[in-house]
């Protein structure tokens, strides 16, 4: 039951974040890249005031999977490393915390680009 509720929380929070994104797209006609950046910065700023981590604690993947979770991870990593190591930590911490995601994307991007061919959208 608890497992189901954790899925439910993830569904509601994740869906709500995506829906906000869709509303922004519908109203402003922003492009993909801009939407991604806006959500990333929103997540980062929320985390700067320590507001995003509670959401992740409550909703789990529902808050960490959207790109705002990525932004909050960057900030969490940078802030924690800065507290531990000082100025150097502020520069290394962010990427260190998110390196897994970026590296996976790059490696799989590389592999996929070698294996597959682009195709036209279906008719």
């Amino acid at each position, binding site marked *: 039951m608890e497992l189901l509720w954790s899925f439910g929380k993830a569904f509601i929070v994740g869906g709500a974040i995506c829906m906000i994104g869709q509303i922004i*797209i519908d109203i402003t*006609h922003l492009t*993909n890249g801009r939407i991604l950046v806006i959500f990333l910065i929103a997540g980062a700023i929320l985390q700067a005031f320590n507001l995003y981590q509670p959401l992740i604690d409550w909703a789990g993947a529902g808050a960490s999977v959207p790109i705002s979770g990525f932004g909050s991870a960057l900030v969490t990593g940078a802030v924690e490393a800065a507290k531990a190591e000082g100025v150097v930590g502020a520069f290394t911490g962010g990427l260190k915390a998110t390196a897994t995601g970026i590296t996976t994307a790059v490696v799989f991007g590389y592999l996929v680009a070698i294996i597959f061919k*682009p*195709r*036209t*959208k279906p*008719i």
Partner: protein
Amino acid sequence: MTQNIENNIKKRTIYFDDVYFSEGFSVVGPKELKGKLGDHFDFALINDKYDQKTFEKAERKMFETAIDGVMAKSKVLPIEVDAILGGDLLDQIVSTSFSARKSSASFFGMYTACATYAQSLIMGAALIHGYYNNVICISGSHFSSAERQYRYPLELGVLRSPMTQWTCTGVGATLLTKNAHTPNTPKITAATPGRVIDYDIKDVNNMGAAMAPAACDTLKQFFSDTGKSPQDFDLILTGDLGKLGKEILLDLSKQEGFDLTDNLADCGASLYFTKQKTFQGGSGAACSAIVVNSIILDNLRSGQMRNLLLVGTGALMSQLTAYQGDGIPAVAHLVEITSSVKDAGREPLEKYYQPKKEEIKMKNEKNAKNNNSKNNNVKNKVNNSKSDSKNEMKNKKENKDK
């Protein structure tokens, strides 16, 4: 050269004698084949990569096919072609220039985005009026190569706005000649080169809205120059305004004092079915070229249509200008094409638009016969010149029915 320009500097319409719209050839992609005009094209690709490694190479090969096809169809030898005029949507119009390297004719690169076809018709007609005998005007685009240059990579998952248009895959080639080789060859009689109009529309998804004012301006110029009215024409064909752009043009033209409602059609809006999810219809340099070189040319030849105005519309923006927040300037070039069939043209409007069932049947049979012989000729020729077994000539559906 022209009668009117000398008298009044504000008149921009130019007139041509003896410029014949001899032959046309249209190459299209699979999506266009399944669209509304699918039965009318000369050559269709089964896969839009045309057995090439990249979409750009495929586009180039489509241009080569179209040039070969129009020469084969009109029985003009490559050496008799004096010049090739044309363009496409890729940077530095590479597709056209690369495909012209196999030809011995002079080459002129043209670019006014989607008005390229109309522009090359005007320039070609001017060259024939003055100097040359045979000129090929060509224009085309490819969805996949244009999409990646102007918008996003193909595999990027984006929600398309309902205002977007679909870049056509296709190439249309026209042979303009000084002498008519066959009777019933349509003529290019006049043209109004357009000027660039910028109404400061910034949404790159809404090209129709950006281009409609330009089309309206050019049409207004033509009607005031010639003293004709929209009712003198069987068809006023805009390039790729799309459904929304067409509606806007209707509104704008009413305001300017001429009414296009009776005979306005748009190439882009009439290419696809709604269920093909192209939203506003087709766009791209190929759009007007493939429509004119297939169905319109047939109509002009058979005398079903007396004359038409082709208004090629082009949105002159690039990704850079869009990112830098500039508006989308647009240009529209107008070409008047007249059928030389005796007593061509529509009988009273009602009769023409609603032919009786028997008439339709007869017309279809006639068309099928014509198409059959035409098709076979071209098929042989193209197959001789090109050894593509995979991309075979498509058979017209009408033939299958019979």
